[in-house]
């Protein structure tokens, strides 16, 4: 849904690393190198970032569309 705040296994804070990680992956950088440079050493924390899918973005699209529709109805 949304990036978890902490690693499920060890409890390390990983939520604040997500946006930088996602941005750099998009630019084509190697995911393993990004994790190393972010200081994510253990494989439990690495999988948190590697395997996360921000489904919340997909769901929010429905609300954005609903809002747009409401606005366009107000125009007429």
């Amino acid at each position, binding site marked *: 849904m*949304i990036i978890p705040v902490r690693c499920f296994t060890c*409890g390390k804070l990983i939520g*604040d690393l997500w946006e930088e990680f996602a941005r750099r992956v998009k630019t084509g950088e190697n995911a393993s190198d990004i994790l190393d440079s972010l200081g994510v050493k253990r494989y439990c924390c690495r999988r948190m970032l590697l395997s996360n899918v921000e489904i919340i973005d997909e769901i929010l699209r429905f*609300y954005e569309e609903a809002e747009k529709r409401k606005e366009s109805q107000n125009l007429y």
Partner: protein
Amino acid sequence: MEIKILDKNATTMRLMIRGADVTLVNALRRIMLAEVPSMAIDEVVIIDNSSILQDEIIAHRLGLTPLKTDLDSYNLPGECECKSEFGCSLCRVTITLNAEANEGTRTVYSGELVSENPEIVPVSDKIPLIKLAKGQKLKLEAYARLGKGKNHAKWQPVSMCAYKYLPKIEIASEKCTGCAKCVEICPKKVFAIKADMVEVRDLLACNLCMDCVEACPQKPSPIKVSWEKNAFIMNIESTGVLPPERIIQEATKILDKQLKEFEEQVKVEVK
């Protein structure tokens, strides 16, 4: 006992402890995990939530957000003089959040949490708490308290706290042929070849897996891997709530307190 700090930064610390027993080192480890208090949100009053995450999920995310802890000015709720279930200004911090998305979808970060005590704030300002679409609102009041790791993992001040024996590697140089099989197989790259001979490059990295002994074509192997009996390497990684050296100091204080209490009880019983 002899303690040496091998490396240290704001959140991690590596110690070499010589002349201590497993019992002591393990007691300290367990106290650091379960007994050293830290601050975390544990009650949330949701005033308005029109976001797509349920109240419980938001409360859970807030609870897991690590907060910088001030152990000197706050008491554990059970030990506070106020004796109230609700808490007083010495055992509770009120944190509020009022977020609304007015112009399109946006992310609400931990930096938007407003704490009544500017010292007790999230460790990082960039933790995404929730995403709001246009027109959605989130308004809440949260209470942070001190707590212990044994009650909930959110109160654990360390995300890693482990120790291992100090490795001891002996290479019988007259029998070693310098075939470098051990250099190749070692997952931690402990060995290096120098002048056709195998030598130990990084002793502390060894995790005692014994792959080097098995990979050696000579039987019995000239490499002997063992460990020092009373020397340990301890690794501590704080979540950022307290500096690692403070966590160790607190752990020793707590152990001391528990032993004193035990001693008192024994005295009472013996009489």
